[in-house]
């Protein structure tokens, strides 16, 4: 089942259906994306401004709960449902931006290193090794602390941390791909190197890149949440899941819902993305089947 990109549409849809995708995870992710996109329309309340009268209001099914705040309200009286919905925008937005940019950078570096080999390869791969040898969280904290916490900086830091994973994998695949005869024939036909990389290497590494991207998206959400929890992520009062867990931590004994709901959201999202990524990897790998 390698290279589904080379299939006509109808055949591809049939093949995907036969491959038994994890429908529950895909369904949850679809729902989450829809919720994130339409958050301003769905959310019952503002995610930033609360009413102190409903401070730490419990979820509706507990004593003292009201339908105004289905999942309760936080320490500043902000509605949890609204915070969660807007928080999904942050998490998914950061994940999307970071994954796309680190994917583009990493894939490009990997292809160039693998295709040209020699000194180019040595230099690029040593840089990659160095980047991989630094503990993620530590560097992220230092960088965000230095640059100042903001959405933009969090995304930049995560991109800096993630590209080496793409680069290393893509380089390995490119090393194999460049030995294929069609690459030699393209050179004989007079194709410049950049055309060979674009037309012959890139489409062949795309399945791998997609798999890494899916698995990395889960990592990004975790990383962003961890930064938020540690207080070096996206600054308050922006709604972000990690930040919400961090803020709710001190109220865990009295108002558990402030930390539990965003924690559950992180957990479910990351789990679904990992399941989807695992499935993609198996499905695209001819050896597992």
């Amino acid at each position, binding site marked *: 089942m*390698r*290279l589904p*990109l*080379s*299939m006509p549409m109808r055949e591809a849809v049939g093949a995907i259906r036969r491959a038994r995708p994890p429908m529950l995870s895909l369904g949850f992710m679809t729902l989450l994306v829809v919720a994130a996109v339409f958050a301003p329309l769905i959310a019952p309340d503002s995610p930033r401004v609360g009413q102190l009268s409903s401070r730490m209001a419990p979820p509706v099914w507990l004593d003292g709960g009201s339908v105004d705040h289905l999942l309760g309200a936080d320490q500043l009286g902000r509605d949890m449902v609204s915070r969660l919905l807007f928080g999904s925008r942050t998490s998914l937005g950061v994940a999307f931006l970071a994954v796309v940019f680190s994917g583009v950078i990493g894939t490009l570096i990997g292809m160039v290193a693998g295709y040209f080999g*020699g000194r180019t390869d040595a230099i690029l791969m040593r840089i990659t090794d160095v980047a991989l040898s630094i503990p993620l969280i530590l560097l992220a904290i230092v960088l965000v602390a230095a640059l100042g916490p903001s959405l933009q900086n969090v995304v930049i830091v995560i991109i800096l941390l993630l590209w080496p994973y793409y680069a290393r994998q893509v380089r390995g695949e490119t090393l194999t791909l460049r030995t*294929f*005869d*069609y690459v*030699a*024939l*393209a*050179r*004989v*036909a*007079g*194709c*410049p190197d950049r*055309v060979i990389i674009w*037309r*012959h290497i890139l*489409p*062949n590494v795309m399945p791998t890149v997609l798999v890494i991207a899916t698995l990395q998206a889960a990592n990004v959400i975790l990383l962003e949440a961890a930064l938020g929890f540690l207080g070096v992520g996206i600054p308050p009062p922006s709604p972000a899941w990690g930040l919400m867990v961090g803020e709710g931590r001190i109220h865990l004994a009295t108002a558990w819902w402030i930390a539990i709901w965003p924690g559950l959201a992180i957990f479910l999202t990351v789990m679904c993305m990992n399941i989807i990524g695992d499935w993609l990897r198996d499905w695209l790998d001819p050896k597992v089947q």
Partner: protein
Amino acid sequence: MQETHTSPIDDPVLDISGLTVEIASGGQIGMALSDISLHVAKGECLGLVGESGSGKSLTALAVVGLLPKKVARIVRGSVRVDGDSAYAEDGHYKDGLRGGKVAMILQDPMSALNPVLKIGDQVEEAIRGRSAMSAVQRRDRAIEMLDLLKINRPAERVGWYPHQFSGGMRQRVVSAAALACEPRLLIADEPTTALDVTVEASFSRLLKQLQRDLDLSVLYISHDFSVVAKMCDRVSVMYGGTIVETGRTEEVLRTPIHPYTDGLIRSIPDVTQKVEWLEPIDGQPPSIFDAPAGCPFAPRCAHASPQCQTDRPPLAETPDGRHYRCWHPLTDNAQDAADA
């Protein structure tokens, strides 16, 4: 160009002279090709025959400038395509030869086509950068080429992917791509080895017919004398990195001069004759890192003398223009050839 152009016969499409290539591997240096000289005239098919490791494919790679950079080095000699030297003074391959002048068909049609690109795009590849054709003209040209290579319904199939074709058809697609740019020289490196026998026969026939119709110049590399006999006007036999014998195919087959050629021909099964036992050539070809000082074939040769062990035989020519490298040519044959 300072050379004066004389008759087309004197002006070969491919002219390799004295090509010597060194291979460095694991700290050892060996002569992979020594003093290779051959030429392919316009409209001619030259066969290059030899066993694995004799240097056939390496010769082809030298012509298209794909010698593995760090491993192989051209020590001496020249490669000329259409009178232009393929390599610049500093040893770099000239890009001008790419994209049209020389095209190639390789052994494995699976690996020669990119699985994620439509075959139409791959056939168009060689004409893409070179000519000022519009996209529509290029597509027409691709369809025309597929039709020429006897692919049915070419207009529909330009949109297909390689996995939708059988092995024989893939090799025809590869050939269509190779011929699309009207190359001056086609290098066919064992194009039928990966195909099964019936497909091989039809593919060879098609290639031969195209070679005649299009007046193609072909360097046809094979380990199989019977295929070369059908395809080629002349044949060069390679052994241990040298060309041991060159001549017109039917003459070489009828009256081989070099004992190695003789051995190769004797080892071809012939269904028309009842033969109890094919004669194999005893022994193994020499490693290039441990090449004999004299004739590379000497250790396996029944006619070898002490001179064969120590001195490399020079290139000799029979009166009728056949070339060989042997101290002890199968003289009867050489004589016959001279008398003929």
